[in-house]
């Protein structure tokens, strides 16, 4: 083994060349980062099929294959047989650091328990999600299930790990002990391997620790940590998250084929992929002092990350995705909701069959424009549903007494209000094949604008080649290197969306606007309801936009109050969205299709029929 030992501080020597991999369920992606002058840049990438499954059953095969591809492309010698050469020997040999993330084998699957579902149950869920897990169930004393149903559920689930919470420190112990008794009776088995005990983290009322240990100490690999809700008014998720990471490495990873070897190769602990993505998003939001919403829409799941006023949250919608779970988007959103984005008619049976065929052959790609439009319509709904899910969990603490002033009496707000305020949102970061590989960048922008309906002024971007996981781990070692690459190579800025809030009849005045470009050019015009306008504004360019909303319309400063903001450009440009918020589409089919066609043409969303015809001619000779 030539990889640096874990106790060998990687920061002790200057970091010039880094190779990083992300071992996904199907593909292992490797990137090379090099210091060029004073800044770090991502220079080469390689990929290879992940080799966790038979016949290889050794994750390091895929890692070495992906790195070998980088070797070929870059001309740098990184591998010496099955070993990674560290540190750099000269300009063309070795790397200073090798790091990795992993979501192979379905990621980290956890079951969490609490006493009150929307209090400790939710806190436990947030702790697990923040640590990069997929939460397969939340059990709580008041979840409506009968005791024997709970036990049956624990028995049938095979999680990688359980997180138990419940009770404030010094509070009642009965319910949390009762839950421990249910778990003990169910004798849960881990997902991989029948030979080791299931890891269980207890992060509840510290007074109950002794009793929980007596009940579960023998039956599980029990670990105690600080209460995640020591008092009702405060959440303390950090210690539980750290324990989840530790147990992930100590237990879960040890069972996965080849991971022992991989852990010896890396210069920093392997992180679950979503935990690393969350980390880089949190780092960027804090560094730039912005509110950020990130999404990673994959084949099976959609992860949503948010940082609002420094508060980080992550959710995973385990069955909303574009291939393996595409059929579930149809089941959850409904056919009509998906079809509202499609600018043509198609009969239900054909569409249902097509979606199911995508589910059973998930690696296929749309070949015709119709198919592309249907996939992008499904993506809009998957993104929208995942955000609704995120909003419901990214909340203030529930069950907390609030001090109220006389003005609050009129607001009717309850505790546990969502933290996601679209008006305060500065940046949306999209990731995942359907967004990152959309044939036109404007398609990625419109999918996110339609799904999220940003309010006021919001900047949008996509991850160029999904390197956020790699940068997340890198940020634990060298924040500058990670943020350099994030800003210069990872992010593709699409542009800015300006969306006045309010509704009106199509054709009515929504707002007057004035755009002052950096070259001094000024555009003054009127935005009507139903309008969608796109102005070119290149990457790195800025413009000043003044919007004077009509009566009853606003941009956060009050009805009819003008707002002036500096907006950033991108590969798409500046989008003025006069379609109204909330966005509503005509119920009548013909009117809807006509309106969609107008919008899509206004921003050049899809090739025109002439362009398509010429493309057909090239293809089917």
């Amino acid at each position, binding site marked *: 083994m030539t990889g640096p030992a874990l106790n060998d501080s990687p920061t002790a020597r200057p970091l010039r060349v880094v190779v990083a991999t992300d071992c996904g369920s199907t593909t292992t992606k490797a990137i090379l980062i090099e210091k060029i002058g004073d800044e770090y840049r991502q220079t080469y990438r390689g990929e290879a099929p992940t080799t966790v499954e038979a016949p290889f059953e050794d994750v390091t095969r895929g890692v070495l294959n992906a790195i070998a591809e980088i070797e070929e492309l870059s001309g740098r010698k990184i591998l010496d047989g099955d070993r990674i050469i560290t540190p750099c020997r000269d300009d063309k040999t070795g790397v200073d650091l090798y790091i990795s993330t992993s979501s192979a084998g379905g990621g980290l699957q956890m079951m969490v328990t609490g006493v009150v579902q929307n209090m400790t149950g939710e806190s436990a869920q947030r702790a697990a999600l923040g640590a990069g897990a997929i939460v397969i169930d939340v059990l709580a004393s008041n979840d409506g299930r009968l005791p024997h149903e709970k036990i049956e559920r624990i028995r049938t689930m095979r999680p990688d790990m359980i997180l138990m919470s419940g009770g404030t420190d010094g509070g009642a112990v009965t319910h949390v002990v009762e839950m421990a008794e249910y778990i003990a009776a169910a004798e849960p088995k881990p997902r991989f391997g029948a030979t080791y005990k299931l890891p269980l983290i207890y992060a509840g009322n510290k007074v109950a620790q002794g*009793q929980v240990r007596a009940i579960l100490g023998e039956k599980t690999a029990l670990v105690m940590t600080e209460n995640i809700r020591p008092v009702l008014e405060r959440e303390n998720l950090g210690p539980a998250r750290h324990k989840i990471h530790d147990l992930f490495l100590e237990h879960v990873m040890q069972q996965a084929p080849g991971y022992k070897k991989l852990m010896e190769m890396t210069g920093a602990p392997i992180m679950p992929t979503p935990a690393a993505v969350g980390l880089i998003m949190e780092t960027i939001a804090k560094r730039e002092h912005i509110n950020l919403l990130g999404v990673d829409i994959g084949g099976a799941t959609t992860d949503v990350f948010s940082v609002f006023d420094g508060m980080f949250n992550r959710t995973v919608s385990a069955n909303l995705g574009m291939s393996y779970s595409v*059929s579930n988007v149809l089941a959850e959103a409904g056919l009509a909701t998906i079809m509202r984005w499609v600018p043509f008619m198609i009969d239900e049976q054909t569409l249902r069959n097509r979606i199911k065929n995508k589910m059973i052959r998930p690696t296929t790609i749309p*070949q015709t424009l119709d198919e592309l439009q249907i996939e992008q319509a499904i993506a809009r709904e998957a993104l929208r549903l995942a955000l609704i899910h995120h909003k419901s969990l990214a909340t203030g603490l529930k069950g907390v007494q609030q001090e109220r002033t006389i003005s609050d009496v009129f607001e009717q707000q309850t505790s546990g209000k969502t933290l996601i305020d679209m008006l305060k949102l500065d940046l949306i970061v999209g990731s995942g094949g359907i967004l990152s590989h959309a044939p036109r960048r404007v398609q990625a922008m419109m999918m996110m604008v339609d799904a999220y309906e940003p309010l006021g002024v919001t900047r949008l971007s996509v991850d160029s080649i999904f390197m956020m996981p790699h940068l997340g781990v890198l940020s634990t070692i060298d924040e500058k290197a990670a943020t350099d690459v994030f800003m210069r190579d990872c992010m593709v800025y699409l542009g800015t969306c300006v969306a006045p809030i309010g509704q009106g009849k199509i054709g009515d005045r929504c707002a007057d606007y004035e755009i002052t470009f950096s070259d001094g050019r000024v555009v003054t015009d009127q935005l009507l309801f139903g309008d969608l306008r796109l102005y070119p504004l290149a990457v790195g360019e800025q413009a000043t936009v003044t919007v004077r909303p009509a009566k009853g319309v606003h941009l956060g400063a009050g009805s009819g109050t003008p707002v002036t903001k500096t907006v950033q450009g991108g590969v798409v440009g500046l989008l003025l969205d006069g379609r109204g918020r909330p966005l509503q589409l005509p119920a009548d089919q013909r009117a809807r299709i006509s309106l969609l066609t107008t919008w899509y043409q206004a921003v050049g969303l899809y090739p025109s029929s002439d362009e398509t015809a010429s493309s057909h001619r090239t*293809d089917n000779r």
Partner: protein
Amino acid sequence: MAHSYTPGLTVTDNTVVRRVRQLPLQGTVLVKDGDLVRATQSVARAELPGKVYPLNLANQLGVAPGEIKDYLVKREGETVHKDEVLAENKPFFKWLKTEIRSPITGTVESVSTVTGQVLLREPPRVLELLAYVDGLVVEVRPQQGVTVECVCSLVQGIFGIGGEAYGELVVAVDAPDRPLTPDRLTVEMKGRVVIGGSFLPAATMVKAKEIGVAGLVVGGIHDQDLRTLLGYDLGVAITGSEQVGLTLILTEGFGAIPMATKTFALLSARAGAMASISGATQIRAGVIRPEIIIPLKEKRPVVTRPTDRTREGIQLGDLVRIIRDPLFGKIGRVSALPSELRKIPTESEVRVLEVQLDDGSTVVVPRANIEVIEGV
């Protein structure tokens, strides 16, 4: 570089498969290495712990949790019968007496003086693990299970529902492009595996269930009919545990799609033989496809072992199926493999290949949208 085509489904008349038979928890293996086993024979057995019923005695008796042991008639570890008295109070006046009776027959597993709860457990249930295929035991994992090897014809489907089943193969249509209409099913097909053609209408599904057909193998069905059969919209392709009265295997996909000629010819040639089938499908990491395994009576030398082979990539002349609209379901042979990226109507630049269809015409398709029909 990652292969940009979908690994194919195997259709072969002579191969060797190994099926791992694993108990869900430790038990007893009933066969030895080298034993010949039948598909319906039990190869291992385990006792699944019975269901647990918690009963909060403290609440029901109106006493403190710490006191409940004083009221128990049955102690931890003792057997209890349904409606037998489990605990009772001893009031001064007889008519104030409360008796708590057991809701199940089982044992008293534990008594908690913290929560006042008693956990009762039903007797264990015996689980018999069947061999699933006729064959030879080639590996025994003590207390866990065995591996059975079988020389057979093998057809992998693309999607299925329902678990493992076993029955005689019977072909119910004349050609692979004929739908399996209800009139094709007869009462003699009870307990058999029925091979249809291009499409399975909802009415045939109903009739097949009435007759008691063990399994149906067809080219395609409509998603709407699958929803009717299951009673819900299938969101994620992880199947095998459905209880719908039969096992259903699709060889091509959703819609009316003729079964591949090769598949139909193989299944027809083996009509009358006993087959082991499974509808279990998992389309994620560790892909599981539904299968029809037809053991060969006489041991012929195995030509290839396609399931164990790692393909080097797609080659000229390979038999492929197009798996995405607008040419979904068409089958042909690879006639060219241009290496440069080509712009398709969506404007994506992708690697493509040329396929020559049965009618002699040639079409260009993204490599991601074909599937190799594997096996010889």
